[in-house]
């Protein structure tokens, strides 16, 4: 019921914004993107808007939050998740057009520390993570119960055999960007985030890379939200697959996956 209400609302908004049949009209596209990918998508959206006149709004938040909102009828047209589990959930809830689901990006998990510091620590099996936290330091990560970066981090730490030693020494942040902030402010001596987040922040440095084999591949899936799709949204969806977009993604540090 909520969903159809939101749909009606969206339809009214669309109608009021002067849409006419037959041309690429709805003037705005709303993209729900995982927090870590939002800045890159915004960087891609700006020239797109300049070229086509279609404005793109990017709402970046924790994947879990965005997914719950879409299930409850949020009027986004496109959704980019940081963990396949959530896209599957959306698919199961029939919120997205599963036939058009693709994996757009890949990312890497890194161990980060405040910029001014001398810690060196390579994530490997049994590495001295707990010792590196000191007496009362906490490891800043996205909340492993629902934030994708946190889920990957927990997986990696478990695979490397150190999860048990740090499970009660965590600072579970609401999203991965918040985790980076904790490290940048020196509140946490160490943290785990995506390589792309570390690159964006000028308060942290990368201490080491988590081996790809220690966790499920970080996959960013892209899909249209069936109920809200518009020609303009389609245009942007396709644009995200363009070479111009790829250049931007790679500049931010993402791996762009081939369309399947």
């Amino acid at each position: 019921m909520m969903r159809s209400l939101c749909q009606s609302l969206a339809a009214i908004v669309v109608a009021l914004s002067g849409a006419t049949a037959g041309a690429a009209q709805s003037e705005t596209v709303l993209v729900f993107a995982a927090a870590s990918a939002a800045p890159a998508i915004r960087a891609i959206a700006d020239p797109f808007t300049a070229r086509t006149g279609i404005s793109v709004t990017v709402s970046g938040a924790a994947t879990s939050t965005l997914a719950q909102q879409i299930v409850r009828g949020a009027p986004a047209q496109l959704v980019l998740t940081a963990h396949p589990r959530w896209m599957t959930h959306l698919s199961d809830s029939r919120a997205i057009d599963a036939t058009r689901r693709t994996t757009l990006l890949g990312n890497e998990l890194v161990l980060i520390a405040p910029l001014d510091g001398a810690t060196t620590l390579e994530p490997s099996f049994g590495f001295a993570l707990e010792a590196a936290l000191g007496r009362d330091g906490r490891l800043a990560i996205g909340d492993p119960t629902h934030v994708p970066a946190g889920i990957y981090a927990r997986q990696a730490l478990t695979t490397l055999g150190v999860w048990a030693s740090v499970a009660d020494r965590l600072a579970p942040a609401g999203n991965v960007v918040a985790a980076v902030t904790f490290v940048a402010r020196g509140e946490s001596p160490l943290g785990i985030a995506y390589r792309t987040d570390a690159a964006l922040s000028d308060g942290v440095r990368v201490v080491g890379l988590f081996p790809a084999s220690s966790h499920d591949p970080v996959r960013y899936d892209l899909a249209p939200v069936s109920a809200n799709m518009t020609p303009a949204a389609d245009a942007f969806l396709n644009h995200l697959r363009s070479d111009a977009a790829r250049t931007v993604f790679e500049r931010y540090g993402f791996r762009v996956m081939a369309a399947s």
Partner: protein
Amino acid sequence: MLSPLEIEIITLSLRVSFWAVLIGLPLAIGAAWLLARTTFPGKVLVDGILHLPLVVPPVIVGYALLVLFGRQGAIGSILYDAFGVSFAFNWKGAALASGVMAFPLMVRAVRLSIEAIDQRLETAARTLGANRVRVFATITLPLALPGVLSGAVLAFARSLGEFGATITFVSNIPGETRTLPLAIFNLTQVPGSEAAIGRLVLISIAIALAALILSEVLSRRIGARIRGTPT
């Protein structure tokens, strides 16, 4: 009836809110008295700043707390070096976040209460030899008590619901900073937790209601005694 986890969450919430109000209330009374009874340059500005947590997004307040009271914060580092007091990732930080967010509510309630007191009573007390401190303690504060109390309880209820500043400042650590709202938030992010969410929500509402009712009753009793009308 309540699971151990739920008890842990509730106890933490109560402790955090209790301390937030306990420390915040005397400060709020002081601020309210200054605003109600004195004039000084920049008073309007101070008034505005005190009200910022009410109007600014809670996440921003949380970030400001991180900058000021975090380990490397301007105030936080001094407190740690001098007194060994740290707000990093512990319930004290959660209490600080709650206290700051609820502070404007306490100041408003107490200030209104003080302003409603006839200043002629205060000047009469001064002619009887009471200095300003004694006037405050024996005349102003007792007469302002209903407002002070309702401000405290309002702040307590607000603290119980505090989320944005808390999670931004001290993250979501079970047993340390996972108060009721943060626990509920976590559950909402995981599909299929509706039952657990429902329980926690009901508990939150019950506690807040109890606090509000208690405040109303106490406030009336004390107000009646002061005004001398029958309860």
